[in-house]
C-alpha cells in the first residue's frame, strides 16, 4: 500500500516534537559532534604511544632492487623501520583480501601501483616519522605499467601478478548471468536495437576523515586492542585472527566515531596491519593515520567499469531486453569488498525497474597497475553502475523513438501486482509501486511546464536539459545462505537490556559512519516497547561490547540490523507479558499491549508499564517457570531476502553554450524506502547522496597518466562538490513497506548516490540534444561538455 502520510508523532510523548518511536527526531549523537566532542581515531592518545608513517612507491610498476633503512633508523626519535623482508619473517608480508586474493602489506618483490606501501617507520612523534621516510633509500628497476584496462588482456601486456603461481595474464575473472541464447533471440526479433559504450570512471569515496588505526598489543597477556576506522569491526576481528594468528578472544576492535565511510572503511588496509606489527615490535601503542593524498591514492576507489550497453525494444516503446559486456578495472590486487559469490557485486540488477523478456550480462575483471579496492562510495555493491547503465540506455532509446523519457519509463515499469517480481538475472524484488513515485516527482517538478520552458529556450538557442532517472536499489544482504564475506554469513545481531528503572541499552553489530544509528535504533526500540528514545542507549563499534555481525555498508544497517533490533525488542515485549501477568496475578493471554504497557483486557486501568515490569523482573515478584529475572534478550537476524528501495529523480540543468559549464538548477528526488523511521535522518542521507551524485556527474575522477602516475592525489586535483554546485534539494517520498522486513523498512543510505548521476547526465545530454549529442561520459566538466557539443565526446579513460 502506497501512502504519502508521515508517521504522526505519538501524543503519549507529551511533547509532540518528540515521538516515542518513529518520526522526526533530532539526532542523539549531534550534540557531541556540533560541540566538537566527537571521539575520532586521531583523538585517541594512549600512554607511551608512538607514531607510524608509510613510505609509498613513487612509480606504478617496478621491481624492488634494494632498500637501505640505516639513515632512517639513525634519525632522532625513530624506534623502528619495518620492510617487506621483516614482514616475510613474520609471515605477514601478504594478507588475504575480501575477494579471495592476496595483497602485499609491504612490497617484497615488486611495486604494483603508485602509492603502494614500501616501508613503515615508527617514531616518537609523527613529524620524526614523516621526516625519516625521506631518509630511506630505495632502488627500483622500472617495468612497463598496465594502465588502460582495455589493454590489460593484450597478448604482450606485462603480467602484473607474477606473485601468483602459474599466472600468465591479467584476467581476474569472467562472470556471466542471465540466459544468453534467450536474450539473443529477443534482440534478433526486436524492432529497435541500440548500443552504447557507457563508462563509469574511477572515483573515490573521499570521506572527510581519512583512514587510520591505533594498535595496542599487550605482550604480557597477548591481547591486541585495535582502534580502527572501520565499518565492520566484527568481521575485522575474525580476519585479524586468521591473518595474524592472534586468538580471536584476545582481539578487541574498537571503531570510534567515524567521519564518513562510504565503503572506504570496509577493508583492512596495510596501514592497519603495520600499526599492529609496529606495536608488537616496539611494545608500545602505535598510531597510524594516513594523510589526504594517501587516502586518495591508495585506499579503496569505486566504479571503474567500462560497459558495452545494448537495449532492445519494439517501435512502440516496449523494452524487451538489455544486454551488456563489462570490463572491470580492479587495480593491482582484487581487494573488492563484496559477497563471495558475486564477483561483480549486485551489478546483475541492471535490468532496472522494468518488466523485461530477457537479460544477459558478462563481466570480465582485470588487473591494472592502479590502487586496489572497488565497491566503495555508497554503491550498494555495484547497483550504482547497473542503474547508471540501464537509465542511460533507456534515455538513448527514448531519444531514438522520439518519446518522452518519463513516459517511456512509465510504459515499461514492473506493475504493482507483479511483486514479488522475479527478474531475468535471479533477483526477487520484494515490493514496489513505481508509477505513483514517478508521477509524484513529475508533479513536484512541474514536468510539463519544464518541457514548455525548454522548448521556448531552445528556440532562443539556450541550452536547458531535463533528466529523468528511475532506480531500483538492492540492499540489505544476506540472506546468509546466499551472501557471505570471506565465509562469514551476512547476518547481524542485537542485544537489548532493560534496566530496573525502565531505561534500556541496545547493542548492535553495525557501525555508524554518520548515518545516525544512535537515534534510528533507539527509535526502533521505542516504537516496539513504548519507551522514549532518549531512555535507550545504543552501543556500537566495540567488539567487546556488542554481538557479532557483518557491519555497515551496502545500505544494510536498517534492513538487517534494524530487523534484529525490532525482533529483539519484540522478544523483550513478549517476555514482559509473562512478567506483567505474574505482577497482575492474571494469565498472559488475558493481557493486551498498548504502546508502553501491558493491561488486562477489558480493564485498561489494571496494567504495568515497561518500567514497572522491568523493576518487577529484577525485584521480588514470583516469576513463572522458564522466565528468568531480567528483561533482556538477544537475537541474530538473517533476512529472508534483500530489500528493494526505489525512487524517481528529475534534474534540471542549464548549460552555458559558450563555455560548456553546467549548472544544476533543480533536483527533485522522490524516494521510497518503505517504512520511514526518522524522516529527518532519511532526508539527510538523501541530501548527502545527491551531493555525491553531482560530484560524480560533474567533476570527480581518479585519473592517471600513461606511466601510472595518479593525477588526483589531493583535493586540488580530485574535486568534490561544494554548496555552490548543488541546488536546494526538493525531496518527496512514497511508502511501500518491505513485506518481509520486521518493520517494513528498506535501506536508504545509498539510494541517492545510485539514482542521481543518471538523472544529471540525462539532463545534460538532453540539454545538448540540439547539437545531436546522444551520450557523454562523466565527469561532465566544461571541457568535456564542450567537446561533446563539437561532436567529439570521448570516454574519460
Amino acid at each position: 500500500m502506497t501512502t504519502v502520510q508521515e508517521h504522526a508523532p505519538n501524543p503519549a510523548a507529551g511533547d509532540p516534537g518528540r515521538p516515542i518511536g518513529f518520526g522526526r527526531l533530532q539526532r542523539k549523537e549531534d550534540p557531541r559532534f556540533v560541540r566538537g566532542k566527537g571521539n575520532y581515531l586521531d583523538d585517541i592518545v594512549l600512554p607511551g604511544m608512538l607514531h607510524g608513517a608509510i613510505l609509498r612507491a613513487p612509480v606504478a610498476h617496478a621491481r624492488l632492487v634494494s632498500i637501505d633503512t640505516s639513515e632512517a633508523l639513525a634519525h632522532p626519535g625513530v624506534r623502528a623501520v619495518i620492510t617487506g623482508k621483516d614482514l616475510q619473517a613474520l609471515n605477514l608480508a601478504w594478507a588475504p583480501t575480501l575477494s579471495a586474493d592476496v595483497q602485499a602489506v609491504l612490497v617484497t618483490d615488486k611495486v604494483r601501483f603508485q602509492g603502494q606501501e614500501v616501508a613503515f617507520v615508527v617514531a616518537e612523534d609523527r613529524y620524526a616519522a614523516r621526516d625519516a621516510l625521506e631518509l630511506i633509500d630505495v632502488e627500483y628497476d622500472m617495468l612497463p605499467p598496465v594502465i588502460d584496462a582495455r589493454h590489460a588482456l593484450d597478448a604482450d601486456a606485462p603480467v602484473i601478478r607474477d606473485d601468483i603461481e602459474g599466472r600468465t595474464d591479467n584476467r581476474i575473472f569472467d562472470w556471466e548471468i542471465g540466459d544468453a541464447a534467450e536474450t539473443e533471440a529477443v534482440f534478433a526479433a526486436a524492432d529497435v536495437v541500440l548500443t552504447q559504450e557507457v563508462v563509469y570512471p574511477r572515483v573515490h569515496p573521499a570521506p572527510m576523515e581519512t583512514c587510520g588505526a591505533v594498535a595496542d598489543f599487550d605482550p604480557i597477556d597477548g591481547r591486541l586492542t585495535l582502534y580502527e576506522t572501520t565499518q565492520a569491526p566484527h568481521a575485522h576481528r575474525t580476519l585479524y585472527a586468521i591473518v595474524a594468528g592472534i586468538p580471536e578472544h584476545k582481539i578487541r576492535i574498537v571503531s570510534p566515531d567515524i567521519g564518513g565511510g562510504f565503503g572506504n572503511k570496509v577493508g583492512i588496509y596495510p596501514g592497519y596491519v603495520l600499526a599492529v606489527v609496529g606495536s608488537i615490535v616496539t611494545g608500545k601503542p602505535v598510531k597510524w593515520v594516513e594523510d589526504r593524498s594517501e587516502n586518495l591514492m591508495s585506499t579503496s576507489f569505486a566504479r571503474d567499469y567500462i560497459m558495452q550497453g545494448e537495449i532492445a525494444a519494439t517501435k512502440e516503446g516496449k523494452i524487451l531486453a538489455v544486454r551488456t559486456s563489462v570490463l572491470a578495472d580492479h587495480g593491482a590486487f582484487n581487494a573488492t569488498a563484496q559477497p563471495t559469490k558475486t564477483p561483480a557485486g549486485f551489478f546483475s540488477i541492471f535490468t532496472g525497474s522494468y518488466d523485461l523478456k530477457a537479460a544477459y550480462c558478462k563481466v570480465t575483471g582485470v588487473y591494472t597497475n592502479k590502487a586496489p579496492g572497488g565497491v566503495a562510495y555508497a554503491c550498494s555493491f555495484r547497483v550504482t553502475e547497473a542503474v547508471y547503465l540501464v537509465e542511460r540506455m533507456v534515455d538513448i532509446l527514448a531519444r531514438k523513438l522520439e518519446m518522452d523519457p518519463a513516459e517511456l519509463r512509465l510504459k515499461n515499469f514492473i506493475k504493482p501486482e507483479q511483486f514479488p517480481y522475479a527478474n531475468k538475472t535471479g533477483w526477487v524484488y520484494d515490493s514496489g509501486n513505481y508509477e505513483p513515485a514517478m508521477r509524484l516527482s513529475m508533479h513536484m517538478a512541474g514536468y510539463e511546464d519544464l518541457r514548455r520552458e525548454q522548448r521556448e529556450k531552445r528556440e532562443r538557442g539556450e541550452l536547458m536539459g531535463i533528466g529523468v532517472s528511475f532506480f531500483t536499489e538492492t540492499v540489505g544482504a544476506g540472506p546468509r545462505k546466499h551472501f557471505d564475506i570471506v565465509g562469514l554469513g551476512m547476518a547481524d545481531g542485537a542485544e537489548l537490556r532493560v534496566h530496573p528503572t525502565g531505561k534500556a541499552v541496545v547493542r548492535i553489530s553495525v557501525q555508524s559512519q554518520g548515518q545516525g544509528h544512535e537515534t534510528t535504533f533507539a527509535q526502533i526500540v521505542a516504537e516496539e516497547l513504548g519507551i522514549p528514545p532518549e531512555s535507550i542507549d545504543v552501543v556500537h563499534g566495540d567488539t567487546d561490547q556488542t554481538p557479532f555481525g557483518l557491519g555497515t555498508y551496502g545500505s544494510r544497517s536498517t534492513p538487517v540490523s534494524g530487523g534484529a533490533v525490532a525482533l529483539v525488542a519484540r522478544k523483550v515485549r513478549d517476555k514482559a507479558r509473562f512478567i506483567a501477568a505474574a505482577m497482575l496475578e492474571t494469565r498472559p493471554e488475558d493481557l493486551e499491549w498498548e504502546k508502553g504497557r501491558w493491561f488486562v483486557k477489558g480493564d485498561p486501568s489494571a496494567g504495568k508499564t515497561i518500567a514497572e515490569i522491568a523493576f518487577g523482573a529484577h525485584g521480588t515478584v514470583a516469576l513463572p517457570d522458564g522466565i528468568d529475572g531480567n528483561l533482556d534478550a538477544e537475537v541474530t537476524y538473517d533476512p529472508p531476502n534483500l530489500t528493494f528501495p526505489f525512487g524517481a529523480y528529475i534534474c534540471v540543468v542549464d548549460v552555458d553554450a559558450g563555455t560548456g559549464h553546467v549548472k544544476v538548477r533543480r533536483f527533485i528526488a522522490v524516494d521510497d524506502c518503505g517504512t520511514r523511521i526518522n524522516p529527518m535522518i532519511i532526508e539527510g542521507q538523501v541530501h548527502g547522496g545527491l551531493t555525491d551524485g553531482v560530484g560524480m556527474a560533474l567533476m570527480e575522477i581518479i585519473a592517471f597518466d600513461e606511466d601510472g602516475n595518479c593525477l588526483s592525489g589531493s583535493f586540488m586535483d580530485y574535486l568534490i562538490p561544494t554548496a555552490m554546485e548543488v541546488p536546494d534539494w526538493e525531496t518527496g517520498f512514497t511508502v511501500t513497506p518491505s513485506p518481509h522486513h520486521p518493520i517494513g523498512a528498506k535501506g536508504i543510505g545509498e539510494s541517492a548516490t545510485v539514482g542521481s548521476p543518471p538523472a544529471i547526465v540525462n539532463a545534460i545530454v538532453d540539454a545538448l540534444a540540439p547539437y545531436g549529442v546522444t551520450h557523454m561520459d562523466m565527469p561532465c566538466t566544461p571541457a568535456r561538455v564542450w567537446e561533446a557539443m563539437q561532436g567529439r565526446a570521448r570516454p574519460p579513460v
Partner: protein
Amino acid sequence: MQIPAPFDYERASDVANALALLERHGPESRIIAGGHSLLPMMKLRLARPEWLIDINDLAELEFIRRDGEELRVGALTRHTALLESADVADLFPIIHDAEQVIADPVVRNRGTIGGSLCQADPAEDLSTVCDVLRAQAVIRGPDGERTVPMSDFHRGPYETAVAQNELLYEVRFAIRPRSGSAYEKVERRVGDWAVVAAGAAVGLAADGTVEEAAIGLTAVGLDGTIPEAEAVLLGQQPHEELFVEAARIAAAACHPVDDQRGPVDYKRHLADELTRRVLRRACARAAGAQEG
C-alpha cells in the same frame, strides 16, 4: 594530516623588522601572509622554506585608500576587504568580478592581494586583473622603495620583480574617468584554479571612442596584456564586431597547455569566448560610467 618539512618561524613586528628578518635568514626564508598557497605547497613538500616570516601583524600593510587619482591597496589587504569595498566595486568592477570567483570565503578571509601577486601562479586571477588595470607595484627593500609597473613585475610562473630581501608594500591603481572593466572565469568547480579567465579594461574618450584598452588572459601561458588585440579597439566606437576581432586575436596569441582542466582547443575557444564577454561588459560599464 599532511606534514611539512621542518622549518622555523618568526613573526615580524613591522615592515622594517620584516625586511631585517629576510636579510638575516637569507634565501631560504619566505614571507607568509594568508598562507593559502604556500602552506599547501609546504604540506606536499613541494616548497621547503627553512624560515617563515609571518607578516600578519603588519596592520600598516592593510588598507584601501583613495589618494587623489589613485586607489592604493596595501599588500596585506585581504580578498574579503577588496570584495566588500564600495570604492573598489565602483572604480574597478573587474576586481569585484574577480574576487567573487577567487577560491571560497574561507580562503578570501585570509588570502591577500600581495600574496596572490607574489605567488605569481600562472592561474592567479589578480595578476591578470592588475595587468589589465596597469597597476603599479610598490616594493620596499633594504635600499628603500621602488615602484614597478605590472608589465615589469611578472617574470614568468612563480617569479616576480620582488627580490628575496624585499617586500611588496602596496599596489596602486590609476583612476580614470569613463572607464569600465570586467573579469570572467570558467572553473570546473568553485575554488578550483581557472580553466581560463579573461579580464578587460577600457577607457572611453568624450566622444565615446575607445581611448585606452587592456585585455588579459589567465592560465593560458601569457605574461602581461595582449597589445595586438587591444589595438583593434583603440580609436573606435565599441561594437560587437570589434570585440569578435579582438577576441580572435587574443585567442590566437595565448599558449594554453593540455591538462586535467581541458585540451588546448577548448582553452583557446574559451579565451575567445571570454574575451568577447568581458569586452562587452567592460564597454557597457564604461558607457554607463560616462552617463553617470
